[in-house]
């Protein structure tokens, strides 16, 4: 899956959870301000992201992954780690 596809999935999921269109939200825009994603909605988004990409956000990211950009970077880090893991 390309980064573009990951971003598209995130935007669709944010739209579904928040009830507001997230297709044009800036990568570094705070999701609470941009689409009204409340703290419970953010937990749903984090959980679904972990489920889809099969990894766990670290403790710090649970608090700081508040933008699409930060979430994408966390997913990218996980993918890079997975690629370099010994078979």
């Amino acid at each position, binding site marked *: 899956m390309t980064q573009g596809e990951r971003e598209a999935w995130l935007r669709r999921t944010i739209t579904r959870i928040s009830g*507001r269109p997230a297709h044009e939200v800036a990568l570094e825009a705070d999701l609470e301000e941009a689409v009204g994603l409340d703290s419970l909605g953010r937990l749903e988004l984090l959980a679904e992201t972990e489920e889809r990409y099969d990894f766990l956000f670290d403790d710090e990211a649970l608090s700081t992954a508040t933008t699409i950009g930060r979430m994408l970077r966390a997913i990218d880090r996980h993918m890079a780690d997975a690629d370099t893991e010994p078979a």
Partner: protein
Amino acid sequence: MRVGLIAMSGVRVRSEELAAMGVTLPQFVSRGRVIASLPSLGLLTVAALTPQDVEVAYREIDELPPDGALEEFDLVGISSFTARIDAAYEMADRYRAAGVPVVLGGLHVSMMPDEAARHADSIVIGGAEGAWPQLIEDFRRGEMRPRYQGLQKDVFKPGNYAKPRFDLLKGRAYNRVTVQTSRGCPINCEFCAASLRITSSFQQKPVDLVVEELRAAKEAVDLPFVELADDNSFVNGKWGRAFLGAIAPLELRWFTETDISVADDPELLRLMHAAGCRQILIGLESPTREGLEGLDPHNWKKRRFDGYRAAIERIQAAGISVNGCFVLGLDTHGPEIFEEVRDFIRDSGLLEAQLTVLTPFPGTPLYHRLRREGRLLQDRFWDRCTLFDVNFRPRHMSVGDLEAGLRWLFGEVYNAAEFTRRKRHYMDIIKQRKVLH
């Protein structure tokens, strides 16, 4: 004619230590911000009960300059919680000194009418339904009476009910709006200072009226997270099912307060989640069975205690997080209570916990009992009715023990590591739920 309705929103903790701690405790701060930013549903209802040819302006107290010029009105209505009632009286005194008649109303005024009457040309006791329309008519004739009694029943019947003026909130930055589906609560806890004090019995709003209100709120505040301003939303299962079916198409996300019995009904939980319910606040009150003795007239909560943990698990497994409410300083509580609450919160898997100190709000059975027993620390302590400041002598510990224990517990429960642990646990539940569905 122009009527100004002034809401005294927000509550400030008096204890400097607790106020200082609040800055460093993420969960405490986030919930406090939500509560402080809720609009006054009571005054939006008053606005709706005002005849259409009268201009109504809704103002939050913090929008007004503290010592600046007063906005011009022909009549001012002010509603306040107990903790900010002195600021409300001050505002009322300023308007009256400027020759503008003032009406005071709300829960505190209803409990302390003689006190409030000293700062007002008229007061409304109870809800505004059945009182405000007559008051406006009398005011226009120059015959406003010093007191009006609102209806204690049938408030949602045609002729009495008015849909709150959510349109007055347009253009304001609220992250939540409140909609009421009922008044009162059959459990009737001794300390409760909510709507049951101004209603003669539990009253449920017809589903079609609630749906209309939710549509209006959604239109006014751009798809907000809705907070049902109820004391106990799901007392009636049949009403609950009809309500949930009717609001599901609105695609809202909402929060409400109810009791632990919702966990008995898996279908109700499923419908709640499908209709957008994402959190319920439950007054668990105490982490031990004995701690609940005498809390309500029928010991309902004590009888439910053994099922608390399983109920929390069932509710959260349905995708609805639980905010468990604990009251510190009950007559059964000794110094060991703080560790017991911390342990319960950890063991039960609650996503959130609301910790408050037992507060004898004026007019409640608790206030009258503690006063009778000579256990109130001051005669008048309204600005300390914040739910975090101690105003009475606990039975099995000192005032200092209770204050120190509360601060310790705040640190234990609201610190970033614990909050992260609870979030992680709840995310695991969400993921498990997705696997099962």
